[in-house]
């Protein structure tokens, strides 16, 4: 460093209001930093990330000829970018900056001020020791492929796809079910406005199908993802539906023609309350309007011995193809929006509520289908015993707010149950409806009013978590009915109430294959298994992988308005990247010194991105910076120390180690 100018460090410690200053003596930190080697300026300031804070840095760079900047404030994951920009605006290479995490890693997690301050000394000492080793680096720019992949065709995926397509972006929408629509397509009405779900959803579904910018792949799954932001290579698998999608016109003539004269197989779309045939369309408005054949039950596919009356009915169109196999498509996109939704809680997991054991215990989704006029009972509420119930009890938080199953609140079950209760009351005003709840959660626009309406309609609310649903009768009126045993915590005693029908408001869970999807798209999951957003407040639809966004209930339970808002946000985030045309990538890549390398090849197999190649002419290894993602594994493993990593050079880390450990 002989020829380099003398190191002059500007050091700034942020109070973050009181977030840092309440625990750490920021002035003492600034004083301490002032006497460390190479520190030319040392200041404390209320909010370093504010404009005046950033300007302070820029001014000091000029006035004090600073050439290194250290800011001790919050997590670099939050504001490193902010301060690098400020450093650059001040006329320095942005990588002459280093950040100390005094908030998340110190003031917020400790409770002894003097110890926290002592720790802060060590933290900043490390940064000040590190930063003289920093080098000027150039940001890497990667072009962004303008196409987008949207995974999941529920309301989130549909909305995201349409938003992007309407902005002129090419979108691939991949849905694994035979139709798009997701959970919302199963709903009858939506709370709190009680407008019909189908009326608002189906137009959007057909827009997706007809949009020139959208390629809709239903009954398909993403099986492989390679590459990085702006340049993802994706393989999509199309499952055989035994019906040629391009030839089928949705006339549905094959269905009545099927050799099974009556529907006899459980109909998934109607929560198995209804029946369908081996050749079927999930529901009348299914998109695409294409039938499919269930190979598990189709006589021809199972035995090969069938008259194939469906083929006959299809006639010249010849859409039915029993020889269909899985096919694959390879596509290139720049961004991915994951909107894979949720799974409902399996009520069998709480046996004391009797789901599966007692025929008249239903889930809220089953009742949703039942109350839908196009559903299996054409809108009538009937028990599995065929009787219309006089009393219906809703049990809330089934598989929610319960550490034995799912500890989170599923957010919509209170409102959803009230909606069903109101609909039941509307259908049959004399029905007694009880709602057993722990807390009524009715946030959001119109929700509290909806709660009030439920109360005024005479729906009885009992605050108490139901202990059990039993057929153990102790009074004559309980005989033959479902008895709910529960403490009425408001009244202060235990009650037994008999019902004709019990509805379990089942919670929302991550999809069963959420972990596989997470790995596929290089995302993280929270402890509960929903995909983890980059920041709960400031980056709610981003993930830790650039160019992969999340929307809807795959990120956590939410209602339709929030889902749509997120989907729009994810689409907008993707558009930012597309319209920028390129993305700047941290230059934390690794480099091999050709002079130093002995060509021992130890590093070659370590690179997950095959960025390291052995050059036959020089007999040395070399790294392709465009492929390198900067993990540094090869750097740590190079036995002769001939690989370096920008931003994480050995010298920088050794200085940090020495810095955090130097004795006061």
């Amino acid at each position, binding site marked *: 460093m002989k020829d380099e100018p003398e190191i002059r460090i500007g050091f700034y410690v942020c109070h973050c209001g009181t977030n840092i200053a309440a625990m750490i003596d920021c002035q003492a930190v600034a004083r301490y930093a002032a006497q460390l080697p190479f520190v030319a300026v040392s200041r404390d300031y209320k909010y370093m990330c504010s404009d005046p804070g950033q300007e302070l840095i820029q001014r000091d760079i000029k006035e004090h000829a600073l050439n290194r900047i250290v800011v001790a404030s919050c997590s670099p994951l939050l504001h490193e970018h902010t301060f690098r920009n400020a450093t650059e605006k001040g006329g320095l290479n942005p990588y002459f900056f280093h950040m100390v995490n005094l908030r998340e890693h110190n003031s917020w997690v400790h409770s002894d001020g003097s110890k926290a301050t002592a720790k802060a000394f060590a933290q900043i000492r490390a940064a000040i020791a590190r930063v003289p080793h920093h080098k000027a680096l150039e940001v890497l720019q990667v072009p962004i492929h303008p196409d987008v992949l949207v995974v999941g065709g529920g309301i989130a995926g549909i909305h995201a796809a349409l938003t992007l397509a309407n902005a002129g972006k090419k979108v691939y929408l991949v849905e694994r079910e035979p139709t798009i629509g997701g959970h919302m397509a199963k709903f009858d009405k939506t709370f709190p406005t009680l407008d019909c779900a189908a009326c608002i959803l189906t137009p959007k579904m057909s827009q997706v199908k007809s949009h020139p910018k959208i390629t809709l792949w239903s009954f398909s799954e993403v099986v492989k993802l390679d590459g990085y932001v702006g340049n993802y290579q994706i393989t999509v698998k199309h499952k055989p539906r035994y019906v040629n999608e391009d030839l089928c016109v949705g006339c549905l003539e094959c269905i009545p023609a099927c050799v099974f004269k009556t529907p006899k197989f459980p109909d998934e779309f109607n929560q198995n309350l209804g029946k369908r045939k081996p050749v079927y369309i999930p529901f009348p408005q299914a998109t695409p309007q294409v039938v499919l054949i269930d190979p598990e039950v189709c006589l021809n596919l199972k035995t090969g011995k069938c008259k194939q009356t469906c083929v006959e009915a299809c006639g010249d169109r010849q859409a039915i193809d029993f020889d269909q196999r899985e096919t694959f498509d390879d596509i290139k996109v720049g961004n991915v929006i994951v909107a894979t939704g949720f799974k409902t809680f399996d009520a069998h997991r709480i046996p*004391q509520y009797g789901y599966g054991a007692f025929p008249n215990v239903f889930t809220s989704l089953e009742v949703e289908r039942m109350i839908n006029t196009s559903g299996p009972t054409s809108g009538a509420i009937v028990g599995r015993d065929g009787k219309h119930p006089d009393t219906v009890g809703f049990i809330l*938080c089934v598989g929610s*707010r*319960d*550490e*034995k199953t799912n500890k989170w609140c599923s957010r919509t079950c209170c409102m959803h149950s009230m909606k069903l209760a109101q609909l039941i009351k509307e259908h049959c005003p004399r029905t007694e409806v009880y709602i057993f709840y*722990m*807390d009524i959660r009715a946030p959001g626009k119109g929700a509290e009013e909806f709660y009030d309406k439920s109360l005024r309609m005479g729906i009885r609310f009992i*605050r*108490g*978590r*139901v*202990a*059990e649903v039993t057929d153990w009768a102790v009074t004559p009126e309980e005989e033959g009915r479902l008895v709910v*045993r*529960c*403490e*009425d*915590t408001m009244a*202060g*005693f*235990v009650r037994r109430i008999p019902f004709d029908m019990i509805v379990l408001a089942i919670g929302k869970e991550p999809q069963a294959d959420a972990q596989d999807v997470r790995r596929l798209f290089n995302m993280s999951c929270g402890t509960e298994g929903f995909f983890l957003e980059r920041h709960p407040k400031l980056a709610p639809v981003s993930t830790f992988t650039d160019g992969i966004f999340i929307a809807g209930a795959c990120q956590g339970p939410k209602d339709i308005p929030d889902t749509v808002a997120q989907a729009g946000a994810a689409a907008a985030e993707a558009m930012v990247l597309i319209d920028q045309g390129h993305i700047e990538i941290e230059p934390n890549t690794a480099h091999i010194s050709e002079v130093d390398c002995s060509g021992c090849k130890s590093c070659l197999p370590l690179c997950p991105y095959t960025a390291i190649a052995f050059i036959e002419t020089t007999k040395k290894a070399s790294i392709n910076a465009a492929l390198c993602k900067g993990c540094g594994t090869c750097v740590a493993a190079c036995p002769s120390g001939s690989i370096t990593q920008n931003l994480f050079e050995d010298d920088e880390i050794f200085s940090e180690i020495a810095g955090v450990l130097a004795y006061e």
Partner: protein
Amino acid sequence: MIEYTRVIKHETDRVPGFGAEVMRAPGCEKLASCIQCGTCSGVCPVSIYMDFTPRQIMALTRADFKDDVLRSRTIWLCVSCYACTTECPRKIRITDIIYELKQRAIQSGYYPEHFAVPVLAREFTDMARANGRITESLLVMRMYLKTNWLAALGMWRLGLKLMSTGRFSYTPEKIEGRAELEKMFAAIDTPIPDYSPSGAPGEETKGTQP
């Protein structure tokens, strides 16, 4: 007939720190998470005999109403069936909390004289410590003698039947390693206050009124 008496509780009725103290006992720390859902009361097989439901005991404990909690009938009714503990959505070990409350009630003498539950507990522990094993027939006899020997008379038919079917033991079971056992207990003995109530006859309860 249940007599309802409405009382306004003042801050002086609380024993600040009581709830926190209970929560420090092993297994009891999760009481802090209680959301008063009432599952414990709903699953409790004997809640109908209780003055406070288990849920209310949790609330009172957390709110430091020591006196009300330790005088309540609820804690003595617990049958240790662990239904509440298993069912609690917050995984609060309610049975263990009730144990903790019982121990505190015994130590503070907060229970009626000749009250059978703590007497049985004491006779049990004495017998287990001295003999290494429990001889149920003798244990029950001793309990009746110390609480309500008239009740013992009421049980004579059952006793006779047990004798005739060979289920009544006349001599105590004793293990060989009694000295070993005593040595083990001695190693961790801390002077426990004498918890047998020794108040004057007729006095309902004995305890330190806060």
